[in-house]
C-alpha cells in the first residue's frame, strides 16, 4: 500500500536496485532523466504520441511520459542504456540501425530501439507489415521509416527488402 504526495519507491532499473523519494505528480520520464540522469528516454511531444520516451516496464514497452514515477515502485524497468554491452559494444539491433542508416538526427532512436527490440522478442522474424505495426507508436521525422524497417529486417536475419 502506498499513499501520499511524496512516495518512497524501490524498483529495479537496468538490473540495479534503485530507491527514491518522488513526488506523486512527477512523470516517470522526468524522474528518469532529471533525477537519475538517464538521457536515453527522450521527451518529444509530452502528449503520449511520439514514443521517444519508450522504456520497458515489467517486460513490456510503455511510454514513460504516460506513467507516474511512483508507479515504478516494485517494477522492473529497462531503458536503452542497458542495450549496449558493458564495454560499449553495440547490440545486434543497434549495429543494424547503424549499418542500415536507421537514424538521422537520432532523437527517436532510443524509443525506436526499445519498440523494435520488444517486437523481435515476441516475433523473431516479423514481416514488413508487422515491423511497421511494431513501431507504430514511435514517430520519426527524418528517415521516412524505410531504413528503420530495413534495420529490423537485417537484425532478424531476413533479406532487407524495402
Amino acid at each position, binding site marked *: *500500500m*502506498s*499513499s*501520499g*504526495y511524496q*512516495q518512497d519507491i524501490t524498483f529495479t532499473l537496468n538490473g540495479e536496485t534503485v530507491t527514491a523519494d518522488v*513526488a*506523486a*505528480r*512527477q*512523470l516517470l520520464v*522526468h524522474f528518469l532523466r532529471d533525477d537519475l540522469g538517464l538521457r536515453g528516454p527522450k521527451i518529444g511531444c*509530452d*502528449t*503520449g504520441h511520439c*514514443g521517444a520516451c*519508450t522504456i520497458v*516496464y515489467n517486460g*513490456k*514497452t*510503455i*511510454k514513460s*511520459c*504516460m*506513467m*507516474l514515477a*511512483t*508507479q515504478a*515502485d516494485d517494477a522492473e524497468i529497462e531503458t536503452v542504456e542497458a542495450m549496449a554491452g558493458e564495454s560499449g559494444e553495440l547490440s545486434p539491433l543497434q549495429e543494424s540501425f547503424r549499418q542500415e542508416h536507421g537514424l538521422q538526427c537520432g532523437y527517436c532512436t532510443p524509443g525506436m530501439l526499445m*519498440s523494435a527490440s*520488444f*517486437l523481435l522478442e515476441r516475433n523473431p522474424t516479423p514481416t514488413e507489415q508487422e515491423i511497421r*505495426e*511494431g513501431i*507504430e*507508436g514511435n514517430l520519426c521525422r527524418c528517415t521516412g521509416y524505410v531504413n528503420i524497417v530495413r534495420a529490423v529486417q537485417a537484425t532478424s536475419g531476413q533479406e532487407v527488402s524495402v
Partner: protein
Amino acid sequence: MLLAAVDYYRPDSVAEAVTALVDNPGGRVLAGGQSLISILKLRAATVDLLVDVSRLEEIRSITALDDGSVRIGAGVTYDEMAHSPELMAAMPAVASIAAHTVDPQVRNRGTFGGNLCHNDPINNFPPLAVALDATMHATGPDGDREVDAAEFFTGYFSNALDRAEVLTSVTLPALNGREIGYQEIEIGEAAARAVAVVAAGNGTITEARVVLGCLAIPARRQAVEEALAGAATTLDSVAEATSGAGDGIDPLSDPDASSEYRQAMASVVAKRAVMEALGGQHE
C-alpha cells in the same frame, strides 16, 4: 512539473479503492492512465487523489464461461486481451480489435475498463460493448451492481457510475453463432466507426445489430437493423439497408473531421462492418 500537486494511493483491493474514493471527494480512479495522465498534464481536470487500481489482481483476469460468454476484468490491458487464449477462442474478433488498438505501448498499459469508463468519442470499445449487449459490473459504497452497456454511456467522457464506484469487470454475452464486424475510418484516431453483430443463413440475414461510435453516446441504429433483417447477404442489399445509418446523428466537429463528414461516413462504415461480419467483400 506538468501535473498539479496530487495525492496518490495504491490500494490492495477494490474495497480499499472504494473507501478511498468515498473519503476523498476529489478522488479519481487511475487505471492504465493512457487518457487520464494526458488530462492531468493539461490540467483539464482537478484531481486531489489518484486511486491506482492498475495492479489489482481481482480485476485483471479474463474468464470464458461455459455458456459462451466472456467476463473481462476492467484492469485487463488491450495487449492482454489480444493474447488471451480464452478471448481468442470465444470471441476472436474482440481479441483482434484489442490487438489493433492505438499502438503497442498504449496496448501494454491501457485497460479495457479505462477505455469504457473514459468514453472518449474516439474510444473503440464503447460501441462494441453496446453492440454486444455487455453487462458492466461495478462496486461502490453500497455494494455491487450491474449496468447494461446501453445505459452505461451517458455523454462525452461520461458514464453512469457514481464517482466512488469502480468498474470491476464486463461480461460479453455469448455470440451464439453471430459474427462481429468492426470498421473505422482512420483520420486522427477515428473519424467514424461502426460495430455490427450479425447472424445469417442461406444467403439471408436473420438478425443484425448495428452501433455507431465516434459519438457522445454509441448509437444503436434500429431502423438499419430492421432493414437488414431478412435482407440478402449481398453487397448491394446490405448497402441499401445501411444507407440511412447516419440519419439523425450529431457527431462532433474537430480538426480531424467535420460533423458533416463523420455523418456522411456513418453509412460507409456501417455497410463495411455488416459485410465484414458476413465474411464478404466490403466494396
